């Protein structure tokens, strides 16, 4: 780094003492920490003096003092460019802390509110006959619903999405492939509630079926398809052409090459993509609200009658608005986070363990 400082233009001043001051004046390494301590002191001083109750305000004042103070001192000692550099560092750091606070708060608050209620009883009982005054009831019916709906959605969407990705990578040329690529992009951007409205107008209102877990699964499948197509496409493109060529050169037909060589090579990556897509739709509430309707009882049959699902359970229990139902909502939210996170972590661990050629 020090070589860079030779280009600084303060040589004229140094001419009197040529040996000692070859480099520009710099603040010592511990300077930021000093500023931090001073800013914290000033911030809490002002906060206490002005009688501000919220400690958030103390922190904000301290942050402002830090940013401005450091910039001023640095600008006077080191020059404007260094000062801007420090300013950028503190702004980037501040934005990081600012982002971390709510994201950590969501997790921490959910855990603190939900952990007490999340136990064996909660997992194994439904909400059948639970009144507003009962501190009982659980999430079993919703878990069944989520499992069945997400399972059906996976069964519908994954084959279609896999075949589409195979078409795009292995066969696709020309207008049809271009159109499919474009509309997969379009589909990625469809809000979940719009997918729900589509199934509502098609399956329920036009074809006349009733609320059911299957209807919800159809909407979830629509949301899953583009995600799986995209990730599978990426994975298939990673498969080296040499493998295809070797297989074809041995006289293996193209479809067997795809089934026996290309897909198995990309399998772990495809699985990761599918798991991430499942984790995403497992938390979808809006389509389920429109299509599955919600049910306090256990309904094991996804093809007839309203069901519940985990995110819908959280929404409904919150909507009831009494103490016990709110507790149940938090416990349901915590369970939902745990399930989604576990699937995510598993998918990423799988991707890391079996990464093709470890290119990253």
């Amino acid at each position, binding site marked *: 780094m020090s070589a*860079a400082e030779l280009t600084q233009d303060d040589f004229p001043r140094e001419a009197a003492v040529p040996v000692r001051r070859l480099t520009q004046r710099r603040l010592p390494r511990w300077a930021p920490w000093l500023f931090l301590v001073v800013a914290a002191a000033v911030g809490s001083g002002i906060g206490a003096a002005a009688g501000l109750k919220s400690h958030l305000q103390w922190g904000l004042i301290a942050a402002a003092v830090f940013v401005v103070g450091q910039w001023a001192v640095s600008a006077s000692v080191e020059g404007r460019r260094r000062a801007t550099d420090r300013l950028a560092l503190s702004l980037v750091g501040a934005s990081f802390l600012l982002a971390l606070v709510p994201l950590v708060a969501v997790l921490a608050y959910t855990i603190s509110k939900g952990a007490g209620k999340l136990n064996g009883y909660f997992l194994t009982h439904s909400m059948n006959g639970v009144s507003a005054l009962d501190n009982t009831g659980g999430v079993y019916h919703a878990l069944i619903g989520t499992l069945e709906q997400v399972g059906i959605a996976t069964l519908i969407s994954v084959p279609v999405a896999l075949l589409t990705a195979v078409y795009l990578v292995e066969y696709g040329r020309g207008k049809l492939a271009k159109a499919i690529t474009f509309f997969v992009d379009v589909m990625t951007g469809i809000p979940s509630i719009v997918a729900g409205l589509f199934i509502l107008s098609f399956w329920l209102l036009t074809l006349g079926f009733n609320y059911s877990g299957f209807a919800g699964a159809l909407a979830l499948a629509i949301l899953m398809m583009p995600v799986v197509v995209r990730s599978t496409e990426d994975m298939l493109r990673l498969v080296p052409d040499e493998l295809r060529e070797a297989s074809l050169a041995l006289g293996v037909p193209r479809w067997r090459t795809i089934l026996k060589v290309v897909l198995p090579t990309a399998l772990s990556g495809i699985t990761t993509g599918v798991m991430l897509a499942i984790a995403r739709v497992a938390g979808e509430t809006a389509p389920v609200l429109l299509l599955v309707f919600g049910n306090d009882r256990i309904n094991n049959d996804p093809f007839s009658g309203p069901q519940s699902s985990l995110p819908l359970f959280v929404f409904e229990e919150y909507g009831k608005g009494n103490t016990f139902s709110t507790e149940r909502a938090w416990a349901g939210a915590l369970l939902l986070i745990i399930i989604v996170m576990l699937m995510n972590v598993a998918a990423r661990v799988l991707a890391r363990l079996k990464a093709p050629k470890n290119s990253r």
Partner: protein
Amino acid sequence: MTPPPPTRRPATTPGGQASPGSVPGPPSGGPEAPDHPSLRGRGGGRAGDRVFLGLSRGAGILLLIVIAAIAGFLLYRGINAIKVDQGNFLTTAGWDPNGLKPVFGVAALVVGTVLSSIVAMVIAVPVGVGVALFISHYAPRRLAQLLGWVVDLLAAVPSVVYGLWGTLFLVPKMMGIHTWLGSYLGWVPVFNQSQPGAYPRTLFTAGVVLAIMVLPIITAMSREVFLQTPRAHEEAALALGATRWEMIRTAVLPFGRPGVISGSMLALGRALGETMAVAMVISQGFNVTLHLLDPGTSTTIAANIANGFGEASRPVGVDALIASGLVLFVITLIVNGIARWIVARRKEFAGSAA
């Protein structure tokens, strides 16, 4: 050290093409499948091949049919509702489709949707880019990897959880900032408070929740492109005496701009269509207003669908909600189209400059 070719997404370039990466290849937008002209004639003749090709092409066509059906059915049901609408569907501000004389329009809903998303973007884009820079260029490598993981995981937290947290934890805490903005910045139209001290279930709070929700998306996509900045560009900037910030401004940000833009647009699409979090946080109303800090004056399209579905009459009430969903669909299509257009344009530019 030779400069690595600035391929946008190395992960998607076909693995072992004849000229590995020395030429800035065609923009990887289309399906540039490896071509085997000599192998295709023979392969096409076998029965198994024909069946498999038919199946996979059929799956692709099915996807196109689904998209067409989405647009078609929303349009069909939506038009049914608009026909019986006593007001102008696009300019009416109220939402009363359940009575004998249904009067409803999306004007207020569209304004609310756009405003809350703008609030979310104004907060989330700078912070998200800052976090991405922190992870890609400031944090120590080990820590950065861990943080990247955490951000990816946070992107997966379901929206209903953000909604629950937003309404039970965040809304009471937003009281202070509402009062502060209202009393010091009240002369700006958007911060004008007509009912100071009202419980802050407002568009502004909804925007903040949306910002928190989309932050991981922006961060994840920006971080990806920032990490792909050619090392040679960064080292060249530093060798010319640039400070770290100057290096970032001259090398990293220009290179990463398309990624930041497309990530932001993706986030905007998510914010526009987000349902549960807004439905749980906001207190609904149907006025065309710019007042972010007034509760009970506006709502978003998606939140109105979730909140209104339970009491919606059949068939007009539900059809009216479907019609508003069609409007949301069109808005997200436009946003995504713009994003794709920007990225495609920038990509060509980047390709020719490299």
